[in-house]
């Protein structure tokens, strides 16, 4: 077993997409471990607190008229002229990787264990050692067309500080309404339509004393983790799908074991979109987006060895924790295959919890029948009385409902 370290730098991140075509940042073997740094793509909402003085973050976010360290952000076109910028922001998450796994082949399952998760402290002089995050009530939020206060619509950024001295929690520092921001290439962003644009704090009005005396319990986790799909070379990081990705389940934190079906040789694992806390549904469009570092262990389960295990027949992501298994239902379980050429934008027009619930039901039924050997009638009775369905997210185009079944149900005696 080897232990690798993968720091963030323009060479070890890809921004806004999963890709089987990007050269691996690290190659390792089943059983190896890696410490992987991740950055939140919302760090520029408060440059001073979340980027300044941090060599890794500064190198990735660097963008001047002359030089943009990571030019492509999203799976969109990379030849101008651009409406929003290279990659067009079709996909927004800063992902570290890909990590290639030696010998991984389509049909295998990659198990990723999260051994530990730590926040990334600020390096700027004024805030050194403290940890910050940003929550954005954004235009893709569930609430956006259903606001009651003026101005309508509006996007609001709330900066949180994460306190880990005791039981970790987050507390709001200030918030502001998004104002049009001009990026170094001169493109104006009237809404949050492209990731990593530095917010000029001279153009915004900070409101302090918000959420006074409210403490949000921390749930450190990675919103986006998954493997490269086989369908396209560049796939938007926003909609989650059969190889995982932007699942946005806060249970994917320390102690979690995620299982993903391998779609391309080498598996190509990437991780990012770190969150300090999120509720089930991620209603406003984002969590408390906070740069984190994780320790991971990778275990490859070969196709031939899956029969008779919990992984038999698995063709979608699965979470195992100490207490439970969770399955992720989506509006479209594999939207890339279902929606054709324009799938990456088309999916946003089909979002629905009703379809996601249906998908979660089917995945859980399959698990109970294949893995636990139940009849269909047994499985359905158990789903009604022993499984819990919850809303994972309603903001990632391919909406999610998760179905969870507790392990202690199967305690034989």
């Amino acid at each position, binding site marked *: 077993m080897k232990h690798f370290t993968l720091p963030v730098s323009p060479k070890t991140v890809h921004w806004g997409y999963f890709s089987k075509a990007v050269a691996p940042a690290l190659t390792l073997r089943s059983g190896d471990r890696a410490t992987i740094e991740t950055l939140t793509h919302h760090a520029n909402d408060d440059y001073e607190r979340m980027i300044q003085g941090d060599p890794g973050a500064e190198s990735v976010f660097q963008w001047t008229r002359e030089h943009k360290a990571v030019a492509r952000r999203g799976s969109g076109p990379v030849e101008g002229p651009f409406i929003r910028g290279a990659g067009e922001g079709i996909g927004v998450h800063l992902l570290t990787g890909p990590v290639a796994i030696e010998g991984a082949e389509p049909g295998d399952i990659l198990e990723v264990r999260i051994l530990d998760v730590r926040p990334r402290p600020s390096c700027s002089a004024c805030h050194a050692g403290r940890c910050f995050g940003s929550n954005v009530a954004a235009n893709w939020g569930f609430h956006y*067309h*259903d606001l009651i206060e003026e101005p*309508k619509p509006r996007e609001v950024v709330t900066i949180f500080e994460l306190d880990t001295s005791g039981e970790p929690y987050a507390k709001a520092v200030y918030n502001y309404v998004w104002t049009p921001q001009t990026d170094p290439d001169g493109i104006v962003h009237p809404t949050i339509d492209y990731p990593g644009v530095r917010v000029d704090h001279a153009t915004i009005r900070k409101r302090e004393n918000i959420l006074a*005396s409210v403490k949000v319990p921390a749930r450190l986790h990675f919103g986006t983790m998954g493997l490269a799909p086989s369908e396209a070379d560049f796939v938007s990081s926003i909609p989650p799908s059969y190889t995982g990705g932007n699942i946005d389940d806060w249970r994917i934190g320390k102690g979690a074991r995620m299982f993903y079906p391998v779609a391309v040789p080498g598996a190509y694992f990437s991780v990012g979109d770190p969150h300090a806390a999120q509720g089930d549904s991620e209603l*406003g469009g984002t969590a408390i987006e906070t740069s984190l570092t994780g320790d991971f262990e990778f275990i490859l389960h070969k196709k031939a060895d899956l029969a008779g295990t919990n992984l038999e027949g698995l063709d979608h992501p699965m979470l195992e924790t100490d207490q439970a298994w969770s399955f992720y239902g989506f509006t479209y379980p594999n939207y890339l295959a279902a929606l054709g050429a324009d799938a990456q934008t088309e999916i946003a027009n089909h979002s629905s919890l009703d379809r996601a619930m249906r998908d979660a039901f089917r995945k859980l039924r399959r698990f109970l029948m294949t893995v636990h050997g139940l009849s269909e009638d047994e499985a359905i009775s158990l789903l*009604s009385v022993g*499984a819990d369905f919850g*809303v994972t997210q309603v903001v990632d185009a391919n909406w999610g409902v998760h179905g969870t079944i507790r392990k202690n149900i199967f305690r034989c005696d």
Partner: protein
Amino acid sequence: MSFRPFTSESYAQDDRPEAWRDVLAAVGLQPATGHSFFDGHATASHRHAAGVALTRLAAGAQSVGPLSQANDDLPIALMPVEDGMVLKSAGGHRIVPVGHLVLLPRGGDWSIAFQRDMRAIVLAATSEALHGRLSGKPRLGEPRVVPPGGFAEIFARLLDATARTLDTLGDVEWNAVSQALVDLLLTLAHQLAASTSDAGSSVTQAALLHRICQTIERRLDDPDLVPARVALAERISERYLQKLFETVGDNFTHYVRERRLQRAWADLSNPLEAHRSISEIAYAYGFGDSAHFSRAFRHRFGLPPRDFRQQEAERATAQHGVTGQRGWPQDALARAHQSNAEARSNVTRTGPGEPRTAERRHHHLPVEASRVHWGYFSRSLPPQIEIASGDTITIETLTQHASDAPDMMIAGDAAAESVFGWTRDKKNVDRRGAGPMDASVFGRGAGEGFGVHICTGPVAVKDAQPGDVLEVRILDIVPRASRNPKHAGRVFGSSVAAWWGYHYNEFLGGPKPREVVTIYEIFDDPDEPHARALYSYRWEPQTDPFGVVHATYDYPGVPVAPATIKRRHAVLDGIRIPLRPHFGVIAVAPREVDFIDSVPPSYFGGNLDNWRLGKGSTVYLPVSVPGALLSVGDSHATQGDGELSGTAIECSMTGTFEVILHKKADLAGRPFADLSYPLIETETDWVLTGFSHPNYLAEFGAQGQSEVYAKSSLDLAMKDAFRKMRRFLMNVKGLSEDEAIALMSAAVDFGVTQVVDGNWGVHAIISKRLFQDAP
């Protein structure tokens, strides 16, 4: 998308009148003077395009009048659905029945009274919708009522169909439909204006001009569209034709060119026309020379056609994720909230320090045939017992699924035998469900099984009045053991994968479809309470004592004859399901019509099916009728979030409750002030209950009890849960909207309550821990 849903549930009580005023204003209406706005439940769906607004309104009784003083735009079309209304104008009072259409002048002295509920479709168009077309401005001095039939009926039906599908029409579809509606409205208005007995020559002129404009519209492709030919076709002189245009300050040539350019503009911005070349479009509108068209277009719109088209295409792409929606004008609301926020943040907590009357009493309500109502709630049921606020009461409940294994769950239990008692000659509890007693719908039995839960009660609470809040604390829940000597002391439950289950339409294996009953044994040991399956069987047609055959599980309490079924043992072998004892149904009587189906939950509580309603939890219910009339039933040993197959592990249980009445006048500052839905409090959390249709009885009116089954969706329930949580955080916790939304993203968990009770549920949970440092 320009679709905009409205529900009063989003707003604090004080803010609702202003919010509702905005809804009405969007279609040129306002509350009639001298009529106070009601503050009950209101919903609306609204959609607009340039100059056109269509709204479907559902609210309580009220009167509305015109918003504007002037009468210089197209009339408003209003159509009552479901209930008639009274039109008051200079011409006197007139009753307008359902299906009749009313055309209302924009201003003037008229009003419309909805004496029962307000359910109407309103179309308001301004001349902006005409895109430069001359309407000849039909003026109506007086409101006009148009009975169904002929052209008006086509208009009315299109209005109705459009209003029903407002939320699902694509932008392109909606634009096309709204244009068609405006055209029909114009034509109808012209007909009415022309038919007025005192129509002067100006009306005739306007109608003639309207007709000429329509002719022009049809022939824009004709490069030889000249005044002489149009005049000839209308059998008027060319000079008179020009004069007609002069009456509206235009001239023929200018008008035709304007219309051609406008139509070309529309096509160039329409993504559906992207395959046509610019010269094709120019030619289609009578421009033979594309260079000439290009010049004219730029002169008119400031951009050459090619650049314009490019710009529109980019805008459409850019808006893919961010649809250009602008909402109701509600700045007044924001101001009102700001001034209240301070006062509201000072909320007192509920706690053991509740003021109580000196004498608290304990009551016991046993279960038997005369003490239950089966499958419905009703405001007209006589109370079984009256208790005072602060009293405790033990209530026995029976599961309606006891008849799935009568030997285990009924036999030997006098109370259960009395409730389920049913022979050829006598059925102890005849009505089961809110349906007709003569079973004239399906013939299943009295009440038709429209509602299935055995509810014990009602319990009247002394001094309870509509507007009060009833706090029901669940102090204890104890399962009811079998009284059959064969099984004495053991506890059983039943779970049915029924035809109303979520899985029912997609079985993998045969026979398809099927209903399956699983009988469980409940082990209520203190260390690890759990349930284990004993056996299961497929439902087989059961003949009830009256001889009716129930091919599916369509009527509650039909005793299953052991000889008709095949028990399968060794089911769910080795599987132990942890218990979550709770009551599926806790309700106060709804204010609406007499018998309400017990299945869909709503504002009054009812079949909430949330397992968090267990020991130690509290539910707050808004009182709707004097005495509150509390009923309890549908006890569950355990259930998962979703209740997927249609039922939980249904098991008879006895609960002990503490009931506290909070008078309307004392609600201010409490977490349950302004309560219009069941609010659950557990030791650690607040749980808010969202439904597809938060008040389906008010929203759908007479059809509510069937519509709610047809129109349920998690997407709607999620929206409702979101709105309720926002309101809770803003009003109870004193947060701004932005703070509330940030918190909902970071700390509120939304989950699926159930997808099987007609009115599907999504709940929102917020931990009390977040606020533990609050002053």
